[in-house]
């Protein structure tokens, strides 16, 4: 017994190190697995509060770009208002098509990361506003990500610039489906993989969200094709997609609170149970 105690006292530093190393490695491995409940996330009182304060300061520095964006949106809305009956006008890209206005929740990005392989955003709305996990996040230009964790007042979003992110997407004109990933290289481009070779595509075609996912409604803008790779072994294309969104500069975003989603999930669950 005495020897055991002696051993523990002698190696207390090493034991402490190994114990804490075990904890931190567990957290690391857990954060890399897909289905998990994340313990260490920035959707909490402490970091959410600090980021909100910092963001309040930063907002002043971005007033000009945000003003420009708002003015642009205003001009677009005005042109819609004045040219209502004009059917000859060129149809503008409506990125929010298929979303009912009552399902949208406006929120603000208070923290944005884009320099690592797994990027997250923090938003300043949480459970109080009705935000739940797996809701889609978009802005006026295109998709941004999917809600992962929520706390009372804050929520975290898995950005599309995240290796773990997988979103169903399709070619706008031909309805061929693929899945949208990120290879961790450039913040302006994401990759569309598993697109069948049958699809007729060319550089510049628009990629939009597909209808197979319950997170995003169909036809929300993502980006345009920038590069086409042919896989020699399989019969699939891999595409580089240039994002419409500048992921390094995000201000206000919309969270999609679709009621259809629960209906679809319940229906599919019933199917499985029977």
């Amino acid at each position, binding site marked *: 017994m005495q020897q055991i105690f002696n051993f523990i006292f002698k190696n*207390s*530093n090493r034991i*402490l*190190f190994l114990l*804490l*190393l075990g*904890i*931190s*490695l*567990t*957290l*690391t*491995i*857990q*954060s*890399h697995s897909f289905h998990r409940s*994340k313990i*260490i*996330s*920035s959707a*909490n009182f*402490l*970091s959410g509060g*600090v*980021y909100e304060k*910092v963001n309040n300061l930063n907002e002043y520095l971005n007033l000009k770009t945000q003003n420009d964006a708002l003015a642009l949106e205003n001009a677009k809305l005005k042109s819609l208002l004045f040219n209502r009956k004009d059917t000859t006008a060129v149809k503008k890209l409506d990125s929010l098509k298929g979303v009912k206005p009552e399902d949208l929740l406006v929120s603000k990005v208070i923290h944005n*990361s*884009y*320099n*690592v*392989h*797994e990027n*997250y955003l*923090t938003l300043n709305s949480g459970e109080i506003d009705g935000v739940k996990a797996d809701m889609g996040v978009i802005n006026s230009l295109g998709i941004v990500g999917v809600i992962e964790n929520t706390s009372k007042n804050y929520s*975290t979003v898995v950005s599309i610039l995240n290796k773990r992110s997988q979103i169903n997407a399709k070619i706008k004109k031909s309805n061929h489906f693929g899945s949208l990933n990120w290879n*961790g290289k450039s*913040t302006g481009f994401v990759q569309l993989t598993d697109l069948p070779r049958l699809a007729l595509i060319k550089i510049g075609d628009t990629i939009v969200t597909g209808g197979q996912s319950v997170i995003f409604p169909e036809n929300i803008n993502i980006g345009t094709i920038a590069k086409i790779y042919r896989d020699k072994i399989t019969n699939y294309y891999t595409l580089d997609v240039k994002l419409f969104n500048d992921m*390094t500069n995000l201000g206000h975003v919309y969270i999609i609170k679709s009621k259809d989603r629960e209906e679809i999930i319940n229906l599919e669950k019933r199917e499985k149970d029977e």
Partner: protein
Amino acid sequence: MNSALLVNIFRFILLLAIQIIIFNNMNFLGYISPFPYILFIILYPVNGNKSALVVSSFLLGIIMDLFSNSGGTHATACLVLAYFRPSIFKFAFGLSYEYQTIKINDVLTPQRFSFILLSVVIHHFTLFLLEAFQLSFILDTLITTVLSTIFTIIICIIIIYLIKPNKR
């Protein structure tokens, strides 16, 4: 209260605050960001309590993780650095050196520089390895480690000189 302890607590909070508010938003060329918060581990007193260093490094890392959504990568990297710090000391200053008299926050000598360099490299390599978590990204990891190390060291040295001006 011990003044060394107070200085360390103050340093812990101040470095974390600077890191989170300023340096986390610094993305040189889009993906290189400095991590001068590890100065806390580097500047910890040489003859200080080792267990306290290990525990406080873990706390330092876990708070960083909390703010950057990175699971436990910062915590692991800080722990590894804190645990191997005595070995790095031996390597940089030699076995026969009087450890009690070493002060890191002083004029830059080759020994001090090699100590800081080794510490930063070990921390950054662990950090980026765990952050990518895939061996296919090993080249990316190495490049980011080298570039970030240069960036971090420059900022660390600037901070050391700012806090402790040479007494003449």
